[in-house]
């Protein structure tokens, strides 16, 4: 939706943070970012959000409606925070698929979950959100937490999620969004563009990746745009909940 195409003859371009890059390069560049931060991803998440990302994820789990025996897909599942909770909720008769396009993140997530004894009902799949390798009408719930903004063609990814969901199944998109207050927005900008890269430099020795994080959040569709995108693709009863003043929003849509 926010992708720019310069006419039928030119190479289509998209955004990578504030830069414009050919579409074919975005996935590669995003992969580089996540290869770089995978090892310190959890520590950085806790530091950057002051631990609040755990509360955002808790709320996501509560709204998922997942119950025993369900089949859940956790796209861009990263280090497996949501997968661990879903594994408990679906029980031995259910199944959770942790999917991530990035093999470094997938390895970190798999090791972390195995270390915690979460294995019996979890599968790990390296998959592109735009072309999910699952049958139609397969999952009861699909979640994507802090992953959609890194996807090149968001419409295609949402359509792919709609396809793999069973009728009545729900999609939950947890993603950074636009703060609702101007004052908070200014404070958040100052924090994102000065403090985040500095922390990235000090802890992960990689300020560029964290500058990308701040830029990609600004380029991501706001609450109402994402809601409209989900509705256009075919989701019904799409609602969203702002959290922490709109810094993060949880969108939920039901497959008709």
């Amino acid at each position: 939706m926010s992708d720019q195409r310069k006419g039928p003859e030119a190479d289509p371009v998209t955004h990578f943070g504030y830069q414009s890059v050919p579409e074919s390069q975005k996935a590669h560049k995003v992969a580089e970012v996540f290869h770089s931060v995978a090892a310190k991803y959890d520590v950085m998440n806790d530091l950057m959000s002051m631990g609040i990302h755990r509360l955002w994820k808790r709320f996501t789990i509560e709204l998922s409606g997942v119950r025993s025996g369900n089949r859940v897909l956790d796209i861009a599942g990263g280090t497996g925070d949501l997968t661990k909770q879903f594994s408990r909720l679906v029980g031995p008769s259910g199944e959770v698929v942790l999917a991530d396009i990035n093999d470094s993140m997938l390895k970190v997530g798999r090791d972390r979950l195995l270390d915690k004894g979460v294995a019996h009902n979890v599968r790990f799949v390296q998959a592109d959100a735009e072309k999910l390798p699952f049958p139609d009408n397969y999952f009861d719930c699909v979640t994507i937490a802090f992953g959609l903004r890194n996807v090149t063609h968001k419409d295609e990814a949402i359509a792919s999620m709609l396809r793999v969901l069973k009728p009545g199944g729900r999609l939950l998109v947890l993603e950074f969004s636009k703060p609702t207050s101007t004052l908070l927005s200014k404070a958040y900008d100052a924090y994102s563009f000065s403090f985040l890269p500095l922390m990235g430099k000090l802890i992960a020795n990689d300020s560029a990746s964290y500058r990308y994080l701040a830029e990609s959040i600004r380029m991501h569709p706001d609450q109402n745009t994402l809601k409209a995108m989900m509705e256009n693709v075919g989701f019904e009863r799409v609602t969203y909940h702002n959290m922490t003043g709109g810094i993060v929003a949880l969108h939920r849509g039901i497959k008709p």
Partner: protein
Amino acid sequence: MIVLTQAVLAAFERGLNSVLAMDAVALTRLAALQGTVIAIDCPAPAFRLFLLPAGDGLHIAAHHEADVDCTIRAPMTRLTQLALAQNKTAILHSDDVILEGDSTALIELSDILQGLELDWEYELSRWLGPVGAALIGRFARNTGDWTKQSQASLQRSLSDWLAEESRTLVGRREGEARFAEIDALRLAVDRLEARLERLAQRRRT
């Protein structure tokens, strides 16, 4: 507000699960309840919570969009009593407590919480080592015993002084004897009243 609610629930859940982990069998018994959902519905102040037992503890949620196995509806005072009282079964049978659905899971959960035996000494030994934990444990037990004995002794001395020395209160035995006399007198008055009633009835006929 969402984040604040989640923070409170997460903190409470963490504290509760630390306590549950100190019991040798609580987590195993909770694992048997995995998959069941218990709703707590309080009309005043209005709130709804969901309890999801699992092998790693008791999870607490403010929202639950799937089916619930059992709902307990009770005022805050009853819920507090339920949390604190030793005899939880009596409270569950109160008039203002409404149970809906399959109450087996709720009764089992209440039984787990009621029967908690916290091995705090083991928890302490994980931080201080066995020697430190044993020393602190012995000190805590001795202090506890001394406190109990001192309290009992103080209570006895105080009641003796109030009843025998200062005569501010009536002593227990003296009080019991007086109550027995009052009971006997009440019985005698009742009998007399019945007798008079009977005589009055005979005179009328």
